[in-house]
């Protein structure tokens, strides 16, 4: 087992452990911080899977912007005190969800079993996003040569989001 395998194991375990922590923590701020840690583990996994650009995208956008928005929302709602006694649904619902999650996981693991165990394509495969300096260039080609139309659609979606948030905030701005 080389350094790479050890790191993969550590970050995979970290991602799963922090995910479980998010689900089981009562305090919303702690849950948000654990989610950030979960995201950082995922970013490290992306880097180990030869996708450093996605790893840094994950940290910049998810951890650096989306989660900051979450923390702002937590502070705006001031839910440190409320929700303490009723963080979870009733026991029946929890048991049902647990069963469903276990079933889902079992089903999907069964499906994943059909992939050859150790087969990750060599990074030098034609068209593959290699880990070197051309990683960015290859992803950029996939984004802007074949995905140009989707890219424009994403732009329109972001515009919609800005307009929607402005409309929601309008009443409060006028007060």
């Amino acid at each position, binding site marked *: 087992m080389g350094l790479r395998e050890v790191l993969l194991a550590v970050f995979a375990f970290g991602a799963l452990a922090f995910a479980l922590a998010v689900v089981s923590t009562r305090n919303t701020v702690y849950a948000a911080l654990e989610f950030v840690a979960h995201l950082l583990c995922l970013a490290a996994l992306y880097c180990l899977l030869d996708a450093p650009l996605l790893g840094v995208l994950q*940290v910049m956008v998810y951890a650096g912007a989306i989660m900051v928005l979450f*923390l702002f929302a937590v502070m705006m709602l001031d839910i440190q005190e409320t929700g303490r006694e009723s963080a979870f649904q009733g026991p029946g619902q929890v048991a049902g969800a647990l069963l469903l999650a276990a079933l889902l996981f079992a089903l999907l693991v069964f499906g994943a079993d059909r992939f050859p165990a150790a087969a990750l394509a060599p990074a030098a495969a034609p068209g593959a996003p290699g880990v070197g300096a051309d990683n960015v260039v290859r992803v950029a080609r996939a984004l802007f040569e074949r995905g140009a139309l989707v890219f424009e659609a994403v732009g329109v979606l972001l515009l919609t989001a800005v307009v929607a948030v402005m409309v929601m905030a309008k009443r409060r701005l006028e007060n």
Partner: protein
Amino acid sequence: MHTALDSLNAAMSAHPLLVQALAAVAKTVFMMTVVMLIGGLILSWVERKQSAIMQDRIGANRAAILGVRAWGLFHNLADAAKGILKEDFIPPDANPFLHTLAPFLAVSTAVVAFAVLPFGGTVHLWGQSVDLTIAPLPIGILFVWAMMGMGVYGVVLAGYVSNNKFSLLGCLRATAQVISYEVATGLTVLGALLFYRSLDFRDMVAWQMGHNLGQVPFLGHLPDLGAVLAHIPAWGVFLQPLGFVLFFTATIVEMTRIPFDLPEGESEIIGYNIEYSGMKFMIFMMSEFVESLLFAWVIVLVFFGGWSLPGLHLGDGVAVLFGHALPYASGVALEAAAMALKIVFFLWFQMLVRWSLPRFRYDQIMHLGWKIMLPLALANLAVTGVLGVLAR
């Protein structure tokens, strides 16, 4: 003696990973020393002396060891001792772990960003090529931005866990200010990256060393100037003067120094760190100095040619300075000195700005960021992009 050296050489040649591991440790020690010395000790001394010079005072000069005052240099050691020995106050309602985590995050994210900053090219040791960068990632500059983004958590946590409404308001203002200018910071370097075509700092420096202004697409086409421009190195600042000015301004806001120091406002406003004392408070202050070194370094790499020195060419074991051959080692030393001098210049320039300008009002900062810098950065990018593509 000879035999010991020989056996060392043999051992090193036989274990390439050992060479790299030792090199990694050496690079880490070097970088930590630089950051702690400059960010932790020297910059706060320079700050005192620079302000004293500009205000016609003498500045800090009393701290002495055995009567030696050394121009006040020992004040920083006295500060460090005081920081360690002060009471570490944790508000009774605050979570001690998170209260401690906040300053730790604020400074360590900024320092980890140094991992992608090169301090030289590549050297060869025992048949191994060793990059003079701790982590030569292909997405270097984005790594710095990502770490800056993570630094926000230190501020948010400090404000939130302190259980003080002024801390909370201070942290909101600080966060809003820093994230507003992260967009401007990210947009203003893009014009220069259009030429470098890489997100790796080493490629950026290599491009600036390998080109002159005569070879730049739209400048090189101007018939009369071509001959003159061929003597000027193609540094980012010549390609992107507006981009450089905007970037420099945005970085000063990012590190929340005067004239944009609303988050802590030393004299009258109370900010996100009011419930901090002793070493933790000093660490918040130190993170500002660390960021100022970080940005000076990035500016030199992106806009001022990194370690390149006009007229100096390093080839395969030979150095040529304006046509005169030099020993290779002195060429390398010249490059290192050029890099260090450029960084020191920008650190000094940041100090100059800090002590020259009065503080902005909060609405003025937000206005400047969103209504002036962002449109200007977008316009700069659009013009550069169109010219760069059409004059291909």
